[in-house]
């Protein structure tokens, strides 16, 4: 418990900053919707004039963004990206930072097993991503409600947040696995950032070119379709299942690798 609370305490400031950033992005995104809606322009026909590729890159391939739900679903890509970066960084840093901060000799010479250090650290990670998720939920419902006659689409946003949480768990585990297996925090966070960027661009590539369709299984960003979540309110249980299994595998790997690790001073 001592390690768990220490991690919560060590991370609450950065969690608040991340949460504020998320609220700001949701606020800014939905402000743009207000701009569109107030201008009275038919956005769909306006965007119809844009090249498809451009729309796809911004996640607006085939969505009716004249409706608030459609608009939100487009922006969800960015909320998801921010949540993914937060989770993967948390995982990578929390596992490896004792060595970065030269406190590993102190911590691991206490009467604790390696897994008794990793578990509370990962639990603190789950609490952090859950908080981030709830902030995203609250801000989303609030700002959607603001432009949708008070209807925050609570049900649909809630389902979207379940999907987001599964993704966050996946990225937390991915980060933790990288933190346990790579030599330093710096290498782990760089690798994590590289994977996020790579899989994000892969998801764009899959949207752009049907030939890449098979590759969609390789990018977690394609596991949930924001349109289906926010507009239809349906969650792909297959995706949830696959992601949770992969998360479990990554977490197990994290424990196994960290258990065998030679700690650096």
């Amino acid at each position: 418990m001592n390690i768990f609370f220490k991690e919560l305490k060590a991370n609450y400031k950065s969690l608040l900053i991340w949460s504020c950033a998320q609220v700001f992005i949701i606020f800014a995104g939905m402000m743009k919707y207000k701009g569109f809606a107030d201008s009275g322009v038919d956005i769909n026909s306006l965007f119809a004039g844009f090249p498809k590729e451009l729309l796809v890159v911004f996640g607006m391939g085939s969505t009716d963004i004249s409706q608030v739900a459609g608009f939100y679903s487009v922006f969800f890509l960015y909320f998801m990206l921010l949540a993914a970066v937060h989770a993967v960084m948390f995982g990578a840093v929390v596992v490896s930072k004792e060595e970065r901060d030269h406190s590993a000799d102190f911590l691991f010479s206490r009467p604790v097993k390696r897994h008794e250090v990793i578990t509370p650290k990962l639990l603190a990670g789950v609490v952090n991503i859950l908080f981030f998720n709830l902030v995203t939920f609250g801000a989303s419902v609030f700002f959607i409600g603001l432009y949708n006659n008070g209807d925050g689409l609570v049900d649909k946003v809630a389902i979207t947040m379940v999907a987001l949480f599964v993704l966050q768990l996946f990225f937390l585990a991915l980060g933790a696995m990288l933190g346990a297996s790579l030599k330093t925090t710096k290498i782990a966070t760089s690798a994590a950032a590289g994977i996020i960027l790579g899989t994000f661009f892969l998801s764009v590539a899959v949207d752009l070119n049907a030939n890449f369709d098979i590759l969609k299984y390789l990018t977690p960003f394609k596991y949930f379709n924001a349109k289906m979540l926010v507009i239809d309110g349906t969650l792909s249980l297959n995706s949830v299942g696959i992601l949770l299994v992969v998360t479990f595998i990554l977490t197990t790997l994290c424990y196994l690798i960290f258990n065998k690790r030679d700690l650096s001073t």
Partner: protein
Amino acid sequence: MNVIEINQLTKYYGKHRGIENVSFSVEKGEIFGFIGPNGAGKSTTIRALLSLIYPTSGTATIFGKDCIKYGKEIRKDIGYLPSEVFYYENMKVIEVLKYSASFYDDVDMSRIQTLSQTMDLDLNKRIDDLSYGNKKKVGIVQGLLHEPKLIILDEPTGGLDPLMQQKFFDLIRIENEKGATVLFSSHILTEVQKLCRRVAIIKDGSIVKVENLQDMRQHNYKKFTIEFENVVDPAAFGFEGITSLTQEETTLHFLYKGDINKVINRLQGKVLRNMLVEEPTLEEIFMHYYQKEN
């Protein structure tokens, strides 16, 4: 009974040698010295004992139990002062000590006060703001706080002024008298001589010798530097017990082992400008004692 038993312990980092076939044992209740130059493998050995790193081959037991298999159990009774003391920089000293204590059962919290008073440590300062020596003191207090049965000190005195070193040695002696076994690693021979009865000497990853310090003193070398008024014939000092004799103009350097009066007799009738008789450095002992005898 042996508190620590190390058997053919070997650690390679990839192709880099850490330690090779290190074997020695530490008896219950003794203060055991572990000396060797920097990079010889002292920290590697100690960190393997604490299963911070895993040996390539060989075994080690503490309190009769395998270090890796029963690591958690063993570490309940170990107090460890790492050679490089870094703690959670944004915490206060008292927070670090309480955090440390939270890992053990039944810690006498009043010891935080008494130990830090002895070591003259300000509990309310942030770790960030502490000097190297003061960080060492935090290390000392956290290492002794839970009254461990085995105290492992890795280069503990760096950054401590002589007065603090003395207080620290006193603390270690008190814990030792209460029954604690101590493994004391250092690269400074004189420091080890003050506290320890037996020492293991490590060089280039291998144990050169495990020796009783009493025996070692008996054939201890003295390092002579004698500056004469005129150039002298070094052959006058070519007698039994003198090694590595070198001459620089009017100055002679040599190591001597044996009856000091023999050297004094040879100086009769010569005019000296200066004379130094010193303890040889550890490195010189390695060069002229162990390598020759082995």
